[in-house]
């Protein structure tokens, strides 16, 4: 246990070891650790970003789904309205057509009635005249009373 040259030898050895460690061992390891730390941090940040984007996409998806639903509802209601319109229009058309046909039929009927009345009147007049002739033949000169007879015939 004597203090001797070993003291200085140990100091020098120690200094060389420290120098070597500082030069060749510490920096690469610390740099690698730092690089890995950064990589992990980047990876975590990227994961966070991805998650955030996923959330945004989900939100967008639900929004567009909602929009599509709204649109579909609108389209359906529009179609219903349009169908109602068509039905109404058809109803109106049918009604108008019916009325038109009714009117035509009535006009025809009136015409027929009128014609029948004319016919009837002509027949009645002829019958009256014939009857009157028969009556007057005995007492009226056909020639003398021709004017009168014609007048009556026209009035009938």
């Amino acid at each position, binding site marked *: *246990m*004597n*203090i*001797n*040259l*070993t*003291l*200085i*030898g*140990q*100091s020098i*050895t*120690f*200094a060389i*070891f*420290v120098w*070597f*460690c*500082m030069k*060749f*061992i*510490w920096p*690469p*390891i*610390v*740099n*690698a*650790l730092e*690089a*890995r730390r*950064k*990589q992990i941090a980047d990876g975590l940040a990227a994961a966070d970003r991805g998650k955030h984007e996923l959330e945004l996409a989900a939100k967008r998806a639900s929004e567009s789904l909602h929009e599509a639903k709204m649109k579909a509802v609108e389209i359906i209601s529009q179609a219903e309205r349009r169908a109602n319109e068509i039905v109404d229009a058809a109803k109106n058309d049918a009604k108008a057509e019916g009325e038109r046909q009714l009117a035509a039929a009535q006009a025809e009927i009136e015409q027929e009635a009128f014609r029948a009345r004319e016919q009837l009147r002509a027949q009645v007049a002829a019958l009256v005249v014939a009857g009157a002739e028969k009556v007057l033949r005995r007492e009226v000169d056909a020639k003398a009373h021709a004017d009168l007879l014609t007048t009556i015939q026209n009035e009938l």
Partner: protein
Amino acid sequence: MSAEAHTSTEYIKHHLQNLTFGQLPDGSWGVAHSPEQAKAMGFWAINLDTMGFSILLGALFLFLFYRAAKSATSSAPSGFMNFVEVMVEFVDNSVKGSFTARNPMVAPLALTIFIWIFLMNLMDLVPIDWLPGIASWLGVPYLKVVPTTDPNATFGMSIAVFLLVLYYSFKMKGVGGFVGELTLQPFGKWGLPANLFLEGVNLIAKPVSLALRLFGNMYAGEMIFILIALLFAQGAVLALTGGVLQWVWAVFHILVITLQAFIFMTLTIVYLDMAHQEHH
């Protein structure tokens, strides 16, 4: 243990003697064959075992870590790389925790101190007669396998740390600042001698306590292993007891060697931090 009937004292002394190379009494250079010869060599001698084991262990540490450092990538680590990274991060956190200035040298210094001292302390767990036994069989008279039980090793490190403390004290505070710190506090300029004495003791105490704490712990631990080993020659019952005791002490010592390495590292960081502080 050697075949000759050693007395306990001789056994203990044998274990506490370094393999010292220096000038022998007859003027030739060689290895001391007795504690007296080693003592007579004076300062200009060198402890071959301390130097050899410490350089070997330091080189082992540098080799393993250098290999790991070369293959260090940012991808997933595996095997030994994991261990190296854990160590590096542990030291880095310690430095970040107690060192407030910026100096790229402190962390590698702390790592070297921690691992190197740990490895040197770890030699204490090798059963104490194995390596000296092999050595004496090879004709080497003494071998002390734990470099940190040699005050030369611990003081060598603590003096290097102390020089760094002085260097950074002068560099960061300036000559005036550092001298002022030593002389003008705590009692102001009229208490200059007292200040210088107090601060001087304070300053010198740093390397001394650093070295003696490590040396004392390891020396005491080694001594207990030696005393336990003495039991092995005292009959079956005591030998068995000795075996159990050795195991228990070794387990406890695992804690001590790690703790001592950690304390040396932490105090080095703290001292260097104090050297970097402008004023406190």
